[in-house]
């Protein structure tokens, strides 16, 4: 038993170290645009990791994480523009989004299945309405610029963005790994698998569900703030309903059962559209531009889902069974 407790800890440490090294090597060798894409993967990873905990481990569906990202991004932008230092702006973004997540989570804990989907869907589409209604603060559709401090002199903007994004992503992954390993992780799964049994075992179902929502909202807030760092601007158009839907698709296709699935999901969110576009590059037929990559992207999603129902992270290289 003692072995089982210490070994994973050590393994996690090794993984974290390997991650840091890999990101450092990549950011120092990749050309700027690839570094930027890498940074985008990192920012997405914060969100998909949180969503994997919520949906994969706790069984709650959220179609509104794009709106939570927007909360983080706008908070971050407003703080930066008010002259706050970077770290405080990040902290504010995470805190405010956590609070928003707690409110939604309290309502969500009463709802199941499509009713939860419906409520979170309504949250996702409310972003542009809020930025227009309070346009004095949020400047409506046009959004806000983000006044970022310039990176240290020897570092390019893209490297700086990648370090921030992956710093956030690795911390998120590390904390989530620790959180879901212990008692809380077991409670999350117990509630997902059978609420009645969990309740009989003394688990507070509502409390667990709200906590799961709060954790994943904090992650989404960090991811949103990182998006503001990447684009140096925030606007409601950047957080459409399709973003929320793509996030769900990413974690399902990546694999809901484990955090590794979140990594796959984040990679796919960046790589798949780019690949679909580059595959069709050079085909210059009217009306195909834009539409063909879109259809290919959709087709890939369907194909992957049919071929790997447990997500990519669940794929095992088939071994011959001993007879």
């Amino acid at each position: 038993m003692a072995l089982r407790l210490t070994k994973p800890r050590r393994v996690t440490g090794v993984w974290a170290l390997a991650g840091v090294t890999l990101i450092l090597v990549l950011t120092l060798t990749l050309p700027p645009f690839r570094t930027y894409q890498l940074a985008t993967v990192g920012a997405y990873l914060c969100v998909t990791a949180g969503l994997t905990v919520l949906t994969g481990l706790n069984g709650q569906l959220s179609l509104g994480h794009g709106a939570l990202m927007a909360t983080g991004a706008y908070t971050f932008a407003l703080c930066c523009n008010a002259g706050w230092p970077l770290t405080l702006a990040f902290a504010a973004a995470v805190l405010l989004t956590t609070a928003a997540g707690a409110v939604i989570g309290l309502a969500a804990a009463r709802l199941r299945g499509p009713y939860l989907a419906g409520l979170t869907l309504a949250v996702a589409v409310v972003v542009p309405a809020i930025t227009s209604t309070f346009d004095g603060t949020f400047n409506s559709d046009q959004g806000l610029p983000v006044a970022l401090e310039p990176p240290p002199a020897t570092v390019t903007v893209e490297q700086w963005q990648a370090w921030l994004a992956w710093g956030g992503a690795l911390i998120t992954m590390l904390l989530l790994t620790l959180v879901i390993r212990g008692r809380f992780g077991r409670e999350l799964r117990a509630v997902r698998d059978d609420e009645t049994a969990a309740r009989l075992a003394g688990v507070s179902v509502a409390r667990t569900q709200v906590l799961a929502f709060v954790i994943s909202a904090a992650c989404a807030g960090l991811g949103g703030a990182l998006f503001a760092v990447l684009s140096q601007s925030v606007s409601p158009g950047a957080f459409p309903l399709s973003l929320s839907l793509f996030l769900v698709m990413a974690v399902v296709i990546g694999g809901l059962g484990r955090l590794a699935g979140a990594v796959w999901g984040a990679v796919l969110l960046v790589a798949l559209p780019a690949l679909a576009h580059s595959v069709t590059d050079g085909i210059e037929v009217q009306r195909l531009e834009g539409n063909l990559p879109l259809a290919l992207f959709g087709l890939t999603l369907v194909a992957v889902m049919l071929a790997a129902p447990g997500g990519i992270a669940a794929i095992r290289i088939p071994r011959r069974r001993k007879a």
Partner: protein
Amino acid sequence: MDRFVYLTFDGLSRGAVFAAFALALVLIWRATRIVNFAQGAMAVATAYAGFSVSSATGSYWLGFAVAIVTGLALGAVTERVVMRFVDHSSHLNGVVVALGLVLVIQGGLGMIYGNEYRPAAAPFSRDAFTVGGVALLSRFDLFVFAAVGAVCVLLALLFTRTAVGLRMRAAAFAPDVARLLGVHVGGMLTLGWALAAGVGSLAGMLVLPTELGLHPNAMDVVFVSAFTAAVVGGLDSAPGSVAGGLVVGLIVSYVSGYLGATVAPIAVLVLLVVVLLGRPGGLFSRGKARTV
């Protein structure tokens, strides 16, 4: 007062089209226990087919029939070719496959027809009858009400009075038990998909003339409103979804009229929160199935 009356009728006619589409969502939910996120895109695809036939032949009703028949076929094909092979151990797999289908359909329509708006004609005049200077409803609005009412009644009859309806519900709720009792579960699912897509196509033909026209993304916004309506009413209840549609339509109209169009989505969210906190299964839910 005139303004209130006007907004009420505007909201009702808007709500009726939400209700039409919400009915399709209720049907597929009752028949298969999934929410079909591709319902909107499928309806648009069949509407393209319908309006192509209409403009080629000059007959609206021929196109109308083509749209609905195409809808039935598309629903059956989608179930047979794609959905049947989705792993249903997690209901999210179906959601993701449906979302993938949305992209395929929208990309495909864009390739065939281009991303331009095309006219979606209405079979009846859309000029509203005016009473005392206040515009109320048009002939087309009345047609929408009639169609929604007819679908609602037919659905109620199907699910409560026919053996097929009973089998469909059984196949959806407890496929294994149903199979043991001799229900052809696969066939029932195909039938459910076909019927739902057919109703979706009908809804598309009713919705599109009231909006911007035919476009690969034309039903995106309607889908959100209709899903909201179905959730407000309760996904298990056809009358509930009609009531939900009308409530959502009215709220959006009043809020747009009195507070401004931008505030409407916030009002819809508030409505959802209030309704769902009071009744987590929607307005027309029949109490909890299981309490611990």
